[in-house]
């Protein structure tokens, strides 16, 4: 049905030749845009309904005093559905630690939350197919679990700022919401999210079309293609200080893949940009001592580099 609609607009309404470059590109653009927005609005809404059942205040209770591994796994999975915004990272961290969530488990959550979410899943699915989307999500979750376990094993509690341990949260009961209110929340959430990310999505799709048709691939292939063993390493190192959310990364990812960068290198770059960044380090400085921040970044970076090489090997 979407295909017919795109055909109708390009060939009947605008009278473009199906064989022309422009007609083909525009048809592709309209079809992709419709498909991705349809996917985005339905899946984001669905996830938002689930999300309404897991506000961070509840997540922290679920994870409190959980054991290693099980706790890390739950934290990484809850990270997918729990809303996360870097401006809330500090109160979130304090709240978790104060509620007795082990440090390693808290990190599993902090790693998975910004990196793995339904937007990344849908966009990768829409642009590169479900295999790539699932591989990204799966390895993202595993990376969050493993990094959290390693940080937990290192016993770095003393590198959390001292005042964090002294905070005692008040009762702070959340008033439960009705199912109806959850649906309103889901609707508002979806509307707000689409309003925020639609330019990235459109640019991402457009860039994909343009790069696909018009830009030579020699340059990127020469320096960051499959044959360069350092490509993943360099991409991850460049990505560490930078920050963007998953939606903002999509146009970049599209362009790089279109220009011939290996998929594993691109996904590793996307992970390192979304998961760790210089601004995040500055924010975390409020609750963590530098040693723990370095350790956290180091472990995640090494994990992402391994994942990148693994991707390039299997894809």
């Amino acid at each position: 049905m979407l295909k017919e609609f795109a055909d109708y607009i390009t060939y009947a309404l605008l009278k473009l030749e199906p064989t022309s470059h422009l007609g083909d590109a525009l048809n592709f653009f309209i079809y992709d845009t419709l498909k991705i927005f349809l996917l985005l609005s339905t899946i984001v809404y669905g996830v938002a309904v689930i999300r309404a059942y897991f506000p961070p205040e509840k997540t922290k209770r679920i994870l409190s005093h959980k054991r290693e591994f099980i706790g890390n796994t739950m934290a990484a999975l809850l990270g997918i559905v729990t809303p996360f915004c870097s401006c809330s990272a500090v109160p979130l961290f304090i709240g978790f630690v104060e509620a007795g969530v082990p440090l390693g488990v808290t990190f599993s959550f902090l790693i998975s939350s910004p990196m793995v979410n339904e937007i990344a899943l849908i966009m990768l699915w829409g642009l590169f197919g479900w295999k790539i989307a699932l591989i990204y999500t799966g390895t993202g979750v595993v990376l969050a679990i493993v990094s959290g376990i390693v940080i937990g094993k290192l016993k770095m509690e003393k590198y959390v700022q001292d005042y964090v341990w002294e905070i005692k949260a008040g009762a702070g009961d959340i008033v439960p919401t009705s199912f109806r209110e959850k649906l309103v929340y889901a609707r508002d959430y979806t509307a707000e999210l689409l309003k925020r990310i639609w330019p990235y999505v459109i640019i991402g799709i457009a860039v994909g079309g343009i790069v696909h048709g018009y830009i030579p691939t020699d340059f990127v292939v020469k320096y960051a293609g499959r044959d360069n063993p350092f490509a993943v390493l360099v991409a991850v190192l460049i990505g560490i200080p930078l920050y963007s959310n998953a939606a903002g990364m999509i146009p970049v990812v599209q362009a790089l893949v279109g220009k011939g960068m290996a998929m594993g290198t691109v996904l590793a770059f996307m992970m390192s940009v979304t998961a760790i960044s210089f601004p995040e380090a500055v924010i975390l400085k409020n609750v963590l001592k530098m040693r723990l921040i370095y350790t956290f970044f180091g472990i995640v970076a090494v994990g992402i580099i391994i994942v990148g090489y693994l991707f390039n090997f299997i894809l």
Partner: protein
Amino acid sequence: MEIKVLGPGCVNCHKMEAMAKQAVTELGIEANIEKITDIGQIAMHGILSTPGLIVNGKIRHSGKPLPSLEKVKELIKSEA
């Protein structure tokens, strides 16, 4: 009535404060609105995602998206 708006100072936190003030004015009730910006203090109130709205000690809202003005009025009225 005690109303607390909690947030480190992001755009949404200011919006939430403005809405709380307007809701109180429109409802014509006596309320003390306190703005809490210290991160430690925010966490101590049990808020994990900002902005937060606490009415008479109960967390009535936390995080994004913001509730509508009507919703804020409702939340405040239910405690009045």
